[in-house]
């Protein structure tokens, strides 16, 4: 279904996909997708979360096998049943979540699967040499003896690219490569990609970020709900067009937000220092205040201390210094139960891991924090839980089953509704919402946003931590930008992309340095 401009020229296709279909049970992740990757081009694969981009590329790389369709490399039909096959055909892939062994060195990671030997033993010197040679050849610098866990994210990615190139890849697939990079690292990456392209490597660039696609790609194929919608040149395309193709209708509606006077401060964080699992400081002295009736958003690139900040406030992690008070009550270092009792509600960022016990019913999940209430002689009554649950199911329009249905059977949106319902029903003073719409479809997102605004209207203090700037702009009254564990700036939600981007990557708007 992809429309290729008629003047495809004499260039042979490096990679062609015809009618690729992949099903997971009743779910059709890829539905008859066609794709044409020309030699020496950067071709973007654009789509929302769940559109099927990663699935498609995993099929190409042999991690999954297609149910229907064929793959052609260099014009010839090939069978790819494992990554080894893919590599043999010159396809290399850099995954979104890095496929590296953290405790091993860069050199060891690079040669894994294709190791240089000397008298039966691993030739470490040769491995190191290989890394250095590749670094020079492609201009991607990596220390061969450093353990991967010591490398920065950008360096890890460089290592992954080097590895793919080392195996002779002339088709390189990158899955959301900029998701974890700073602006500088992204610029470096783009430079490298352009160089590779000019040398003849064909590149597939998977992304859901419109501006990046327009910046780096030559052509772009848009996927929507498992189907390829259209392929077009990026020259002359604009964000609005791409967005419309991605979503299928005119761009996402924004929920109406009334201006509201904030009330008294409820959440006060002062001088907060929090260490992460490795004992390094992730939060390096944060002050923030959230008043009743306002939504304060903390925006920033993932991994700058947001997780630890949330954990400290909700009691999952004890801070090493500083204070946290809720309505005047000190909850520094409290455990989750005490934090809740003091009025902290927590919409966790991972509803499967922290938000819900998937094998519990809706009733049980709704009661996960207050199952001790209403017990007579320490015996719980499921009926009482069910009654309470039914009220919440009605109020929050949770669909997919009755109160006894295990949450595992619900769709993502309804699961999130359960979480939101529980947290709000606890009547918290301050609601901490972490990535509240992650992985949700448009309807669910709208619901959550409406609900958060309603709570704001009702006078609750809401701390929103989100990676999506759209969401931040839609909901926040004030935006705090977090970078490397500190709040580096406070801006209104109307601030420009440049300003936000600069702050998020450590620059200062006035000097423009980063």
């Amino acid at each position, binding site marked *: 279904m992809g429309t290729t401009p008629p003047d495809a020229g004499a260039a042979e296709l490096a990679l062609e996909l015809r009618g690729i279909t992949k099903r997971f049970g009743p*779910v059709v*992740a890829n539905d008859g997708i066609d794709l044409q990757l020309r030699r020496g081009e950067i071709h973007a694969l654009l789509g929302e979360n769940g559109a099927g981009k990663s*699935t498609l590329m995993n099929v190409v790389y042999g991690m999954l096998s297609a149910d229907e369709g064929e793959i052609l490399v260099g014009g010839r039909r090939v069978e790819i049943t494992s990554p080894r096959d893919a590599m043999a055909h010159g396809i290399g892939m850099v*995954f979104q979540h890095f496929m590296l062994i953290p405790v091993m060195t860069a050199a060891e990671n690079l040669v894994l699967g294709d190791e240089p030997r000397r008298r039966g033993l691993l030739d470490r010197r040769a491995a190191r040499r290989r890394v250095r040679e590749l670094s020079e050849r492609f201009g991607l610098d990596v220390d061969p003896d450093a353990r991967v866990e010591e490398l920065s994210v950008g360096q890890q990615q460089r290592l992954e690219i080097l590895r793919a190139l080392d195996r002779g890849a002339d088709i390189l697939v990158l899955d959301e490569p900029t998701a974890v990079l700073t602006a500088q690292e992204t610029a470096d990456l783009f430079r490298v990609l352009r160089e590779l392209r000019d040398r003849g490597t064909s590149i597939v660039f998977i992304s859901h970020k419109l501006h990046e696609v327009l910046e780096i790609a030559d052509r772009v194929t848009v996927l929507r*709900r498992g189907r390829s919608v259209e392929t077009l040149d990026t020259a002359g395309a604009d964000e609005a067009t791409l967005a419309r193709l991605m979503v299928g209708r005119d761009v996402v509606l924004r929920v109406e937000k009334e201006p509201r006077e904030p009330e008294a401060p409820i959440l006060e964080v002062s001088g907060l220092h929090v260490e992460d699992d490795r004992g390094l400081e992730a939060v390096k002295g944060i002050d923030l205040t959230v008043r009743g009736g306002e939504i304060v958003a903390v925006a920033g690139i993932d991994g700058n201390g947001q997780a630890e900040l949330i954990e400290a406030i909700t009691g999952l992690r004890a801070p090493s210094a500083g204070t946290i008070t809720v309505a005047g009550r000190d909850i520094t270092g409290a455990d989750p139960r005490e934090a809740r009792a003091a009025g902290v509600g927590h919409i966790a960022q991972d509803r499967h*891991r922290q938000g819900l016990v998937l094998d519990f019913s809706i009733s049980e999940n709704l009661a*996960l924090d207050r199952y001790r209430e209403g017990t007579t002689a320490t015996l719980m009554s499921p009926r009482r839980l069910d009654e309470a649950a039914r009220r919440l199911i009605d109020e929050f329009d949770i669909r997919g089953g009755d109160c006894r249905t295990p949450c595992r059977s619900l*769709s993502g949106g309804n699961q999130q509704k359960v979480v939101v319902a529980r947290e709000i029903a606890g009547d918290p003073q301050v609601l901490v919402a972490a990535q509240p719409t992650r992985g949700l479809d448009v309807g669910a997102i709208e619901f959550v946003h409406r609900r958060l605004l309603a709570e704001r209207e009702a006078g609750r203090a809401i701390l929103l931590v989100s990676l999506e700037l759209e969401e931040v702009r839609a909901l926040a009254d004030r935006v705090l930008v977090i970078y490397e564990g500190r709040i580096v700036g406070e801006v209104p939600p109307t601030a420009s992309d440049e300003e936000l981007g600069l702050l998020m990557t450590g620059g200062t708007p006035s000097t423009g340095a980063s």
Partner: protein
Amino acid sequence: MSTVPDPQPGSAPEEKGAGATVAARISDQLAVGGVLLPVVTTLFAFLIGGLVVLATGKNPFSTYQAIFEGSGLNWLLPWVGGADRDIAAINLQQTLLITGPLILLGFAVAFAFRTGLFNIGGQGQYIAGSVVAVWIGSSDMGVPGWLQIVLAMLGAAIAGGVWGGIAGLLRATTGANEVITTIMLNYTALWVSFYLFGLGGPLQNDSQPDIPVSNDVVPEARLPVFWGDPELQGLHIGIFFALVAAVFFWLLLNRSTKGFEARAVGFNPDAARASGIHVGRTYVFVMATCGLLAGLAGSLDILGWQFRIATNDIQAFELGFLGIAVALLGRNTAIGTCLAGLLFGALVSGTSVRNLDPAVFEPALASNLTGIIQGLVVLFVVADVMVIAVWKRLSGRGRRRAGGAGTAGNAEPEPAA
């Protein structure tokens, strides 16, 4: 922002926890198999056991029949009469004698499993309970018999609870895997009891210095027998404690706040913790309760029919480990554990030296056969993936979990809220 769930093989976060806990898999089995699955599993295990018997030149059918008769379950068959019936009655009493403690030991494992813990320490906790039971039971306390019984059982329960609680505490505070710690505690209990009742040990009996055995439980402190002849080891009232424990187990797990916490932690410790449940305290509570049950089992045996501990006996009686098979076969449920306890009780007593006709099958062989069957049962229970897959194909239902990690369930489009 779409309705198609995003199956990303590269996504690290979803991989480890979601749905892979023992508790979750067992709940899956419960949903899929119902009663049929344990029955099939058992039959399969017996089948392979029978093959082993066959392979060593004996007749599996007559063997199993001899075991069946040895267990006394034939007493339930209405056409068995006369002298056979009397013998069967005695055998059945033996079976039920063992079933009581076995059920308790099964719960000692089942409760832990529901919380995501694996309690292999039933053996050690049982020993701890036995030691205290025999110590209190053989003392000259000058109190009425029933009180002494109560004290002995209480002491045994506490001893077992402490023994289990240690492992729970270690798990809660240091994260030490309870499998290793409970195994170590098993052996520690074993050697300590050898020491206590061995020659020259502090609890060795007062009358016979050459024999490493404890004092006898005084006659007043022995559990009354209600069926059969006390001289011939009739059935004592201990079995009722087991049945009461079953009710208690069910209530605890399904109706109490502690049980709610245990189940939540068993399915998803992260979510439990985020909602305010103290995971560490839950571990300690659960392990202590399991130890308590196992210790109680020990006291039932001591006060019910053993009346003493000899260092030879301690090792021979490996009920604690059978508890694992009982719990797994019974799918960690109240009724299942009771039924599985009966099955294994029958197996143990049916293969005992007393009850098995050595002409048909050597008892020493038979006890090993029990061990093999027990292992096979656990092995098959735990291969749920294969079993569930087969089951699904047979019943044509593909709705539940289409093959894997816990991504959001149905892909039905969401009506606008």
